[in-house]
């Protein structure tokens, strides 16, 4: 386990969450001809003070999952319990309360900040909707505190987003996410638009804020090394499903699902001395369309282990003999030659 083990109380429990986007034909009379199965039965738990990393390639449904958890999309079926309450049943005051508690930091710090608003207005805007958090007279002071917390100069409260660099803008986005003192922050690719030297600054900031405010993060990213650094547990998604989940060491050192193995082996290692030392699995083809996923196991069309059984039977996400964490593969087996310690 990691250096600071998360306490066991669960703040968010997602149970078999499904989101299908209908595909329709016809202009006047619309007829549903299919569905894009963006999220197709995802279950996960998030504990207080914990970071859950979600990795997967584009189109695997990780951003749709983020939107569902923010309740920006309504699910087709399934539940998400925030402190025991299903967030999709909430209305009115209770829903507002929920929105206070789950906040998001977006990927692109350029398009997620309104260019016509000052930084003070951007960070203070949540207080307009939730005035109970900061009374009108204290807002400016509170915004300046937030700027200070994320490492920006509080005197820059009247500046506009274009006067800041990418990394600084991401800090503004984080300050806005923190304004309502949420319990959960969903970070949707928060560092992928930033330069390497600035990425580390933002990752450090997110970690220190977590310690300071006891935040839980859902950290969605495609950069596997950043996810490993920040996460306590990791879930790997493929075509709308979680295919493997476990602690960071279980996923990165003892992966059992072929997709996880391929993903890890594809990550370039920043160390030329290990060139050629590890097995690189080059997957053939592209991810199938989520509108028409393969029968049985969804990864079987690109998998080197696939058999007839994989086409017929959908493998459950469960712990199989010989491994210590959940994996959705009939033939789950630890493979270490794809991993390089660096």
């Amino acid at each position, binding site marked *: 386990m990691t250096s600071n083990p998360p306490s066991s109380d669960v703040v968010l429990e997602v149970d078999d969450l499904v989101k299908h986007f209908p595909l329709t034909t016809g202009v006047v009379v619309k007829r549903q001809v299919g569905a894009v199965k963006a999220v197709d039965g995802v279950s996960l738990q998030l504990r207080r003070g914990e970071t859950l990393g979600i990795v997967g390639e584009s189109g695997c449904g990780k951003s749709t999952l983020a939107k569902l958890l923010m309740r920006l999309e309504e699910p087709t079926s399934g539940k998400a319990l925030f402190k025991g309450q299903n967030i999709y049943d909430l209305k009115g005051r209770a829903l507002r309360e929920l929105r206070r508690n789950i906040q998001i930091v977006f990927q692109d710090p350029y398009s997620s900040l309104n260019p016509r608003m000052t930084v003070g207005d951007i960070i203070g805007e949540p207080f307009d909707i939730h005035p109970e958090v900061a009374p009108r007279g204290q807002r400016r002071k509170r915004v300046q505190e937030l700027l200070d917390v994320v490492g920006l100069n509080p005197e820059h409260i009247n500046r506009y987003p274009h006067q800041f660099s990418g990394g600084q803008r991401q800090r503004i986005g984080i300050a806005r996410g923190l304004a309502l003192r949420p319990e959960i922050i969903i970070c949707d690719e928060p560092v992928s638009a930033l330069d390497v030297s600035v990425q580390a*600054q933002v990752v450090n900031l997110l970690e220190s804020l977590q310690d300071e405010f006891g935040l839980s993060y859902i950290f969605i990213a495609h950069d*596997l090394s950043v996810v490993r*650094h920040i996460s306590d547990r990791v879930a790997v998604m493929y075509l709308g499903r979680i295919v493997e989940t476990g602690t960071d060491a279980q996923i990165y050192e003892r992966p059992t699902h072929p997709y996880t193995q391929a993903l890890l082996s*594809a990550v*370039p290692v*920043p160390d*030329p001395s290990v060139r050629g030392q590890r097995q690189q699995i*080059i*997957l053939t*083809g592209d991810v199938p369309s989520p509108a028409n996923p393969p029968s049985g196991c969804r990864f079987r069309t690109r998998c080197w282990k696939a058999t007839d059984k994989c086409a017929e039977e959908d493998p459950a996400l469960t712990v199989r003999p010989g491994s210590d964490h959940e994996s959705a593969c009939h033939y789950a087996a630890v493979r270490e030659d794809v991993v390089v310690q660096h």
Partner: protein
Amino acid sequence: MATTQAGIAPRPDQAGVTPLLEVENLQVEFRTRDGVAKAVNGVSYTLHEGETLAVLGESGSGKSVTAQAIMGILDSPPGFVTGGAVRFRGQDLLALPDDERRAYRGRSISMIFQDALSALNPVFPVGWQIAEMFRVHEGLSKKDAKQRAVELMEQVRIPAARERAGDYPHQFSGGMRQRIMIAMAIALDPDVLIADEPTTALDVTVQAQIMQLLADLQRERNMGLILITHDLGVVADVADKIEVMYSGRIMEQAPVHDIYAAPAHPYTKGLLESIPRVDLKGQELSAIKGLPPNLTNIPAGCEFRPRCPYARDICKEQRPPLAEVVPGRFSACHFAQEVLEGDIEPAQQ
């Protein structure tokens, strides 16, 4: 700028051989309303046949502008090459008139871009766009050009190439679009291929496919490859030697193994240390403080000084030239030797 002249002496490893491509003291500036941005300030490097040169840098470091100047596709105005030379097999391309230079583009040096969707024309089928290379440059008939285009699509491993040649760019996935762009770039069998962030927009599994394809093509054709990237992982996997750029200048130049084992410039050191590593989990990452400089107002002295943990008084006054530290390794730092040997303490703040 006199200080940037050092380090251009012939590299000891390749002395006597005419390099495939030689960039010497290249200077590019952008004249904008907000002032003159000095994007490239005296960049020099050489590329030999079959060699992979990685140009590593953050956004605004001038790595793409250098490539555009080499290709002669700089938007001008506002961009102007204000000095230096780009020699292909000894011939200075910058001295040639436009129509003669055109003959080099695509045939001698060609380039692939980060964003294949915007680099391809959305209203023509991809097969037609690849075939255009043969129709325009080699005067082939439509039919022959189409046939060659299909062959190229097969070479870059696009499945069902003949059927897909009539499809439009939006009908392909990101990885397949990048393959189409690679097909166009290698159509005329160039000697130098410049790949500007070829996999930045792609997923890791697709990135692995594309890098493998580039490596195979390079080996088959013995091309010189210039790989422009900010990804330290990709560089470690494929490069022979590295140029680290910062603020329009080369900060460090070295064979790939040496640079990862022991960087000789504080900026390279900072970049390498900011990568998350397993043994550092739970600890704070060592980030480089501050921001890259504004190119319209580059600080006096060393460009990296405001962010450098080791900066001393001399760094404020003198811009360090790119100078040889140990044979084959160059660094633009007053304390390169000390940084290389790990024999320097951070300055008192």
